[in-house]
């Protein structure tokens, strides 16, 4: 886990016999270095293709299912020929997609930042949950203070809570060498049960009006984030979207233009060399994890203040946003731009497959939700496997050349 998540494509066996694969590898490697757009597109397409096969095999029409999901994302708003009520609905759908993409950008950054320091922050979910707990607690208490101050307070405290939660894992790694994957997994479940307890029946943060419902109090109305696109009643898009964009910019600036970012990247590239070069590796681990948690906690706060306004026990238990952040970061190659686009993709997928947009006649939304999970899993699986692309490519080439396909051993 100390290496960068993207291994360089290994040299191909028997590559000298034909000029084509060498060129392919060179082209592929170039794309990889220039941001890895090709791998991301290939893996995403492959995952959607396999997902389509699953749909086909279970007796549904994949084309109409995917078309319906696409329309549900509201991305057809971008097409100039969509007019009238279709356009109104598309706008509302697009607002929803961006609403879902906003926290995903942040949880994606939470995973990406730790990755750049050579750590796998699998605890984005727990840090997000802690952010929502603190966010809803601050937002629903102290109703007297003015709106902007209330919002800033809630956002800052929730982010700090996330930072603290992740910082524990960083500290354990820095001091006693506990693997951050293990500690963040454990912390995820601690957050899961603490959240379930806090908002559950008889819990300390359960609402004061209806004691039979395991939901928190609503946050104060003046602590709601401003909705700049669409109707606030119908969950329009709030300014948290711009906070997330700001976080993407901050991520890029911190990593590429500050000493801290340089040290983080140096540790991520080679911890031993960084130590030899005089960088305090232990401190980098703690800082990187804390910054990661800061992003995830911020995601929690923004969801609360932007559109959820309250948290239920079920929200804590059913939420997948932190885990999806892993897929977002991996698909986005841990770059700010990549995270933005992959958050859009997953936000669209989540929104397009929700029961609200998908008609059950075309494709049942419960199936579509699970299809999203399959696609997500496949993307994560394939994205790490650059070698797979080469493997399949070589195999196809060999089949064309009429040789035995089994002769290719990529692993050797």
């Amino acid at each position, binding site marked *: *886990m100390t290496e960068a*998540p993207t*291994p360089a494509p*290994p040299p191909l066996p028997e590559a000298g016999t034909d000029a084509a694969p060498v060129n392919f590898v060179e082209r592929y490697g170039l794309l990889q270095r220039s941001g890895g757009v090709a791998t991301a597109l290939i893996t995403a397409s492959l995952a959607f293709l396999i997902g389509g096969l*699953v749909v086909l095999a*279970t007796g549904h029409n994949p084309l109409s299912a995917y078309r319906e999901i696409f329309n549900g994302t509201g991305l057809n708003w971008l097409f100039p020929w969509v007019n009238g009520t279709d356009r109104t609905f598309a706008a509302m759908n697009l607002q929803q997609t961006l609403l879902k993409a906003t926290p995903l950008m942040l949880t994606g950054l939470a995973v990406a930042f730790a990755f750049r320091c050579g750590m*796998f922050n*699998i605890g984005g979910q727990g840090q997000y949950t802690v952010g929502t707990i603190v966010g809803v607690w601050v937002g629903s208490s102290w109703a007297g203070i003015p709106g902007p101050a209330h919002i800033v307070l809630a956002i800052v405290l929730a982010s700090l809570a996330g930072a603290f939660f992740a910082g524990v894992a960083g500290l*354990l790694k820095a001091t*006693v060498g*506990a*693997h951050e*994957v*293990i*500690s963040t*997994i*454990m*912390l995820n*479940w*601690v957050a*899961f*049960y*603490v959240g*379930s*307890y806090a908002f*559950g*029946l*008889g*819990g300390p943060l359960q609402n004061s009006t209806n004691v039979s419902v395991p939901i928190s109090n609503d946050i104060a109305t003046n602590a709601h984030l401003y909705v700049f696109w669409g109707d606030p009643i119908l969950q329009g898009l709030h300014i948290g979207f711009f906070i997330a964009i700001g976080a993407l910019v901050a991520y890029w600036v911190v990593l590429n233009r500050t000493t801290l970012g340089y040290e983080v990247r140096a540790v991520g590239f080679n911890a031993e060399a960084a130590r030899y070069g005089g960088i305090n590796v232990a401190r980098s681990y703690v800082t990187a994890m804390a910054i990661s948690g800061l992003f995830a906690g911020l995601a929690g706060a923004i969801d609360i203040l932007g559109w959820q306004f309250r948290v239920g026990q079920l929200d804590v238990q059913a939420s997948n946003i932190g*885990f999806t952040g*892993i*897929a977002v970061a*991996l698909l986005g190659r841990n770059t700010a731009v990549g995270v933005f686009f992959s958050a859009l993709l997953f936000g669209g997928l989540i929104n397009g497959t929700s029961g609200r947009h998908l008609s059950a006649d075309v494709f*049942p939304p*419960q*199936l579509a*939700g*699970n*299809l*999203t*999970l*399959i*696609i*997500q*899993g*496949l*993307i*994560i*699986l394939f*994205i*790490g*496997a650059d*070698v*797979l692309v080469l*493997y399949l490519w070589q195999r196809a080439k060999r089949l064309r050349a009429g040789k035995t396909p089994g002769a290719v051993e*990529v*692993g*050797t």
Partner: protein
Amino acid sequence: MTTVDQPVRAPAIAMTTRRIGIAGIIFGLAAFWIALPPLTVRSVVWPILVALAALAAGIWAVREGERRIGYGAIFSAIFGVALGYFATQTSLGHLNIVIVWSAILAAMLRYATPLTFAAIGGLFSERSGVVNIGLEGMMLMGAFFSVWGDVQFGSWEVGILAAMLAGGLLALVHAFFAIQLRIDQIVGGTAINFLALGITGYLFIQIYGEQGTPGSIAEIPDVRLHLDKIPPHALGHFLDGAIGQLNLMIWLSFLVVVLASIVMFRTPIGLRIRSVGEHPRAADTVGISVYAVRYGAVVLSGMLAALGGAYLTLGFVHSFNEGMTAGRGFIALAALIFGKWRPFGAFGAALLFGFSSAIADRLALAWGTSWQTLFQALPYLLTLIAVAGVIGRSIPPAAVGRPYKKQ
């Protein structure tokens, strides 16, 4: 696991210190235990006296050099007296509801069994050098496909086979990507968990839809032992309540632990698995196929985790629901780490976590579900403390998580 070396002291004296330290730990627990049914002392004096004995033993052990066990005894004394005090302050009615030892033990075994299967599975995978955080997903596959096979063929045996096949297949995917394509094993495991959630959820909706799995599935039978005939009536009654009626799979899980221990530490196969996990290059040099051993170990881990899932559905709750493993695969992983990558250690940790679930259930009977929910965070906190090195460091196999590239 660090070995305690005592070059100066004679072994016999060191053993005595150790024993006194361990006795201290037991006394600390006893300080709590005497305040519970059946003894139920109602004065706080007795727990304090017993805890003082534990404290003395602990301090003595620390001064004699048995630091770890000594501190364990001191902690045990502090917790024992705190919990003992709490118990004496609690009403007798509540204590009698919560503490029914035979029911607690039976529930502990029921909760521990899925964890045991998955943890032993994880043991094989991780000892061979492949991190398996996909245990959760493999367990979920086992849970779904055991029901599917069971309903299709009307027999739980087929259900179990289907579960092992499905879990093994998913593990094969993990193995292929981790070993052959050398992707990051944690990334791969994460993907496996997502895939399993998606696949089982999709098929569940597709096949069973809104009604859920049929009520008439063939269940794995319980083993009925008539232990209440055992002479002192109280003992017979207790044994009968605790282990008189356990599911077949629970007994099988004991067998799996023993077998895993024998295979891992007493056979050439185990030696190969461990060598591949500690130093693959060296293993390769002496002619062991690193890839073959790792493939075998990972697929076996998937099958065992799936058995845990099959027990969960066919032996415990008798139905399937989306995402029903609810983190049990991760607790199993925690048990594996807590148990220091050893079969009996993992089994002990699984029992401990099962015990905490059982206690949580009983607490809910007296005080409502609120505390039960919070109590369920305990296994994870304990594991966090364990990896932090407070209860002796947990050190993974040397080559775990590192892809191996043949030369």
